């Protein structure tokens, strides 16, 4: 860390420290989990993940955690994306192309409306 030489620099350092802290303490009101097993990656999970992150950034979403998980045994449905908002039950989508990922983000995560036709049939 470089030295600080003015009050402005100190204030900037405080903002940075707060941002770092926020990254550490995000409660994760919205949790999105992308299946990132070998099957998922082969089916294009990375592209789905990138699309999700892109929308998050474009829309400036906060209180959101995007994480990965392994193979859940439904390889034919990969890429699989799970969306969990607050206390609502988890929704699992299958065959998530980047386009579908964008749609899920816009309609479900932001709009609050699930997309039944993308869901994996129970």
């Amino acid at each position, binding site marked *: 860390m470089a030295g*600080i030489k003015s009050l402005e620099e*100190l204030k900037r350092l405080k903002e940075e420290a707060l941002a770092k802290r926020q*990254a550490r303490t995000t409660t*994760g009101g919205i949790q999105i989990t992308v299946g990132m097993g070998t099957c998922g*990656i082969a089916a294009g999970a990375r592209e789905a993940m990138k699309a999700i992150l892109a929308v*998050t950034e474009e829309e400036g979403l906060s209180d959101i*955690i995007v994480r*990965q998980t392994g193979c859940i045994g439904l390889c034919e449905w990969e890429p699989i994306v799970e969306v969990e908002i607050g206390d609502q039950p988890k929704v699992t989508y299958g065959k998530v192309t980047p386009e579908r990922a964008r749609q899920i983000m816009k309609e479900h995560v932001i709009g609050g409306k699930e997309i039944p036709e993308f869901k994996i049939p129970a």
Partner: protein
Amino acid sequence: MKFYRSHVLVCVDPECLAKGAHDILDGLQDELVYQGLIDEVQVLETSRIGGCANGPEIVVYPEGVHYVGLSVDQLPFLVEEHFLKGRVVESLLAKEVKRADEELGPPKPKEVRVVLRNCGKIDPENIEDYIAEDGYQALGKVLSEMTPEQVIEEVLASGLRGRGGAGFPTGRKWQFCRSAPGSPKYIICNADEGDPGAFMNRRVLEGDPHSVIEGMIIAAYAIGASRGYIYCRAEYPVAVRTLNIAIKQARNLGLLGDDILGSGFSFDLEVRMGAGAFVCGEETALMASIEGKRGEPRPRPPFPAVKGLWGKPTNINNVETYANVPQIILKGAQWFASMGTEKSKGTKTFAIAGDVNNTGLIEVPLGITLREVIFDIGEGIKGGKKFKAVQTGGPMGGCLPEQYLDMPVDYESLTAAGSIMGSGGMIVMDEDTCMVDIARFFMEFTQDESCGKCTPCRVGTRRILEILERICDGHGKDGDIETLEMLCQQIKATSLCGLGQGAPNPVESTLKHFRHEYEAHIYEKRCPAKVCRGLIHYRISDNVCTGCMVCARNCPVEAISGERRQVHYIDPDICIRCGICQQVCNFNAVEVY
């Protein structure tokens, strides 16, 4: 703003750097680029995550996973597993999970935390955590907007008084030191917390060292000092270590050293360790100790503000006093003065110990009653017993009985009641406590810690202790009480420093409030609380004893006789009153009378 799904904090403290933290930083960046994750994962430098003992170390958020002992060749695997696939690499996990602050739980009702606000909340070894909590903003404000006189004005207006116990107005002390001729001037922080059972200052030093450092820099600016010392007892190794880390971090950021925040003001400080003498908590003895001399007090005046360390004007305050200063500057004197009583403003930390259900560290607004502290926060006396007395202010404090429970806790009230605020120890005693024995206990402590420089303290405390020991042994005689009173008065009046002047307090206050107990010891040869060994006897109750022989087998002096299944008998002439028979008896047949 760019969104990263994951943040990696890499420790770049000197220890971790020496172990290759820089290579880890570069390696992580390269590997994230190689695996196409660099837009999703942000790598940040941070100071100190764990102990650096197993460095280099990193923490990954949002999961909060802590990896240690990393090497560059592990990075491709780590990045693929954790950052690409989301699998925690168990083999690299830190073994030891950092424990939450166990000494200091969440605030109890009626507590107001000002000094302890950051303790357990921030990482004391990470200056950024302190800065995120408005740390060093007060210093910034002082250096950019305020003159030294304005700083002193603000502290004066807040009504802050010395938290070491004497309660001298802090602003006035600063004023004296500022106007005293001489250069250089020094700032000292008294962190020689030696009262038995008290650990308020240790907690602040270990949990929020920067608040003390910031307070000291502000004080230094106010009085025009360029150099400071924190005098911390060697028995606090963690506090010393934390302080040294904090000082180093502050220095690296330019918050200590030359031209702080571009203001032209320069100040630096260092930690000095005490060697364990209680008297070194006394300011003149403390300064002698810093100078490398024997820790003995000297007469005042001249006060340290005029002639202190190395004969130069010196300002010396307690840990808690300094820790209050940044908050006063930031939130204003009015805010601080809104807490407390007319003459005692703000909050005070106390270490409650003894026979209460809830022992530990608390911070309350001054003016709270003893009853609230003991019964609301302390949740009453252990085992549903009766309250007998509370001793405030450490070994030089007085014991206050029940009728003082509704007295407000502030400097004046405590002094008027024959006790002191002290640094904030509070020992609660239940009905099973013998007050003569308590007086003897504290006198033993002060007598032991007397430095021996002045006669009243050296010889006087010895005499008092001898008399108290005699009374407790059952050999008290008519006239002892009067002799004790005379000794107390004279020691108080003629001792050189606070240790001697305060030493008679426990005796005087117990003589005042529990005189009947002294009289019972001396004239009736009886200890009402059944504590003093010389005045109690053990016997075995005829109708309870089953003759199991457990007591006889455990008696270290073979004072117990009796056949199997026969009632046993304790020979009072052989019995040393160790109480082991009472502890081992399964039938509660051993009684004290």
